[in-house]
């Protein structure tokens, strides 16, 4: 279980700045950043530290047990993003 970014993400990249595990992508310097509609958490490298949750200006990031029903599907979307992505 890892943290989840929901569809209300606006790509304010402050979560990337505070993430100690570098697990939020794409970053502004990565080629798929512009076409990404939101940011995603890599469930393999996320360390469940909560730092991103505290800084998100639109409360779009959730601890695994706290994802509201409206956004439940996004746990899978975060996983899918990394499965299809070249490392």
């Amino acid at each position, binding site marked *: 279980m890892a943290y989840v970014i929901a*569809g209300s993400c606006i790509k304010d990249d402050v979560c990337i700045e505070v993430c100690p595990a570098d697990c939020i992508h794409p970053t502004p310097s990565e080629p*798929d950043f512009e076409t990404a509609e939101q940011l995603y958490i890599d469930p393999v490298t996320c360390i469940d530290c909560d730092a991103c949750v505290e800084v998100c200006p*639109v409360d779009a990031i959730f601890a695994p047990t706290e994802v509201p029903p409206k956004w439940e599907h996004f746990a899978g979307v975060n996983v899918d993003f990394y499965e299809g992505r070249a490392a």
Partner: protein
Amino acid sequence: MSAPRRRVAIVGAGPAGAYAAGQLLASRQRPEVDLFERLPTPWGLLRGGVAPDHQEIKALDKLFEEEVMRPGCRFFGNVELGTDITHDDLLRHYSAVIYAVGAQTDKSLGIKGEDLPGSLPATDFVGWYNGHPDRRALAPDLNVRRAVIIGNGNVAADVARVLTRDVAELERTDIADHALAALRESTIEEVVVLGRRGPAQAAFTNAELRELGHMDGVGLRVAPEEIELDALSQEWLDGEASFTARQNVKLLSEFAQRPAGDAARRIELRFLRSPVAILGDARVEAIEVARNELYRDDGGAIRARSTGGVETIECGLILRSVGYRAVPLPGVPFDERNYVLPNERGRVLDAASGRPAPGVYAVGWIKRGPTGILGTNKRDAAETVACLIEDLDAGAVPDPPHAGAASIDALLAERKPGHVTFDGWRAIDRHEVDRGRPDDRPRVKLSDPDELIAAAGG
């Protein structure tokens, strides 16, 4: 002894202007910032564009309040560039001016019947339901059975949701009261959304597309033949397509397999359709639509062209959502081809010399064109602010003749005594939030400029 703080004017208090103001105030040079806004209220499309059923995104105003509404920054709302204050006035009072005015108008379709009553830009409709002062009198006729939305982006999705969503859900949002009243009486049963290109090229984000298919009491219909992929799209999906495009195609195939259902209201998605003409005598009665096919142009881009087949869809309301377009600013260079201020990393370029016009900058849609989402403006602002700071450090900005904060006060006292300050906005904000409390709404907006200005003074 330190030099006096430099002063910067930002024109436009939308997300791009707000991000730029926040970054300037947090910078090492800490220039003073005056934020000019045509409306009595700040935050631009965050207030007037973001859909009312996306309240969670509106929480960004807390960040703007923290980063912008602080010592060193003043708000001059209800002050319009060109009428109340000019570009030359600003250059006389500030070391630098940043234009953050966005894209004020919509692209037209250029087809017959476009101006018939019942055919509107989707952005006007958005302004209307969000209580934008300029659009409060729009009064769209919702006493029709079918609406057609032209365009496949998130504005189209927003509008489709607002037209079909259960009013009881909208009653918990900050949607304008006049829109709520009209939607209660609406007889719209079906909203048809037309995309020029195919399902793989739809510009919806995956989150917005998913939402269309998961609304209580609203059926989403996607006919299986609508999402058959041609060879070109399949090749594109297997190759260069974005994660969003792949996810959208997957989601559309799921939607296409759903049984028809018997929801009271429906949204239907159709692809590879272009509007040809809007039909009707005194008002919209139908739209004529051509079938398209896809091809690659010489540059490799996937485009749509008509196959010659035409169909007619009866409808009483047509909302076009095919893009925004910026308008020129009086006295400021303008790129007529790309509809932006000509600029290099945010430094506005003089039309004649092609070199940076000293002290003039741009940020947001007026700089890069109408692309990206809210957070895109953060990095866009960072680029412009970095150039401005570099120019301040290098002494590459002019020393204005009236550099003091008081001189602009004197000018505005004469030109626009009814302008709204941050204190005025705080009063409006409190008033609106108080109005919403009895009905458990985040706020009930004021949309009449006179009422807004009265609330600002109270």
